[in-house]
């Protein structure tokens, strides 16, 4: 990874990275949340962002689909320059799934309509096709009988699995997950992580900001440790969890083990 980080800030049309964010900066008022962050994701990989709260994990993810506008840097997604004014951001976002900490399911719509809304309005599918796709996604997340339910009738774990199904339905190139299990009761976390594991085994590229260290250790291809708006250290799960090099990484890992 270190050689890639030193590469010049140009992007070749044949980048080996699906997501190539370089030097991303973001400031909220007087607080600089991201101070020039690189995030390089190869296709098919599961990347974990870890770090204390306020380290910039969420902001980095949200910059990657421009829910936040970065103040500087470049973000290339599948050879599309996301920050170019000429890029159709709505079209680009179809390729970038997002899963939220608080699920953000539409409470006024059934589970089926939650999943099919973008299929019908953005992807232009017929209602019949969209419903079939929704059924497929619901089966995949293990909730085949919930199409007619409303989000409030579901547990948090079920809601998050619907959230994953909703983003997955558009067949995105990558899925960004912002603390997908942080709002869940402990006994519901496993069902969501099982779905993530399944997606990983299907070769779906994911970037997950999370505190689920045990899961990161067994499932992540790459772990990125952020602190104070900077990438402090990154490497394989083994590198980071068993052989952390940086003092701040060691301190963070020691803290969360308690």
């Amino acid at each position, binding site marked *: 990874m270190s050689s890639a980080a030193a590469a010049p800030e140009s992007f070749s049309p044949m980048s080996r990275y699906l997501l190539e964010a370089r030097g991303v900066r973001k400031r909220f008022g007087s607080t600089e949340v991201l101070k020039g962050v690189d995030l390089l994701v190869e296709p098919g990989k599961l990347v974990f962002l870890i770090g204390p709260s306020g380290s910039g994990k969420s902001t980095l993810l949200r910059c990657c*689909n421009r*829910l936040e506008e970065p103040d500087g840097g470049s973000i290339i997604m599948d050879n599309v320059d996301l920050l170019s004014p000429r890029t159709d951001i*709505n*079209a680009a*976002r*179809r390729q*970038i*799934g*997002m899963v*939220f900490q*608080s699920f*953000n*399911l*539409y*409470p*006024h719509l059934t589970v089926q309509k939650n999943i099919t*809304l*973008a299929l019908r*309005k*953005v*992807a232009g599918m017929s209602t019949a096709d969209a419903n079939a796709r929704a059924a497929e996604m619901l089966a995949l997340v293990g909730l085949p009988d919930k199409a007619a339910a409303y989000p409030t009738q579901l547990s948090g774990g079920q809601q998050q699995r619907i*959230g994953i199904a*909703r*983003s997955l339905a*558009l067949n995105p190139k990558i899925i960004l997950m912002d603390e997908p299990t942080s709002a869940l009761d402990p006994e519901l976390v496993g069902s969501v992580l099982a779905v993530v594991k399944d997606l990983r085994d299907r070769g779906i590229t994911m970037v997950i900001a999370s505190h689920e260290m045990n899961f990161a250790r067994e499932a992540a291809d790459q772990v990125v440790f952020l602190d104070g708006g900077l990438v402090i250290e990154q490497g394989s799960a083994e590198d980071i969890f068993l052989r952390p090099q940086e003092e701040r990484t060691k301190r963070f890992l020691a803290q969360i083990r308690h």
Partner: protein
Amino acid sequence: MEQFTQEFFNLDVMTKVAPFLLQGLLQTLLLCSFLIPIGLVSGILVMLLTTSPYRLLRWPAIVAVDFFRAFPPLVLLVFVYAGLPFIGLRVPALVAVAVAFLINSASYYGEIYRAGMVSVPKGQREAARSTGLSATQTLLYVTLPQAIRNVLPDLLSNTVELVKLTTLASVISVPELLHSANLARSLTYNSSPLILAAIIYLLLLLPVVRLIARLEHRL
């Protein structure tokens, strides 16, 4: 007591003027049939202006909304009706009513919609945009339906107020229900027509008021 009943609850008078008042009721219903849709739609437009991210749109809209919420609607109506001819526009009374009510009720409905939009968590918009929905699609399919659901009792309450406010049209001689009742009162030298009009308004609006109470209970 006998005199009181004769003055206010005279059944003979009521029976005699009932057909005349029903014509007034038709006129009131006609007014409502375009004033309510105008208010509901223009309120959404006003909300879009007062919540716009562009200051040049937002601030004039907020000033105008504040002004017209504080401005007496009766004066507004007379001003529109009697004032427009001075700039060369002679408009029928019904058009003057439509314009005055548009200005007035758009402000009120607009503020209700705005409260509704504020009550929708911003994660809803983010979820919608993250799936590629445009800003307009997000408004139409995700945020506005939730906003309306959240403020439905307030929208209905304001609509009840609007129906009662149509009585103002009587001052520029639109023959709506109150105007008819008042005319009947002066012709019969008896106040019973006014009471009959009140009863008609009650029959019209009580079910709605009851519905609002139930909706508020549900929320």
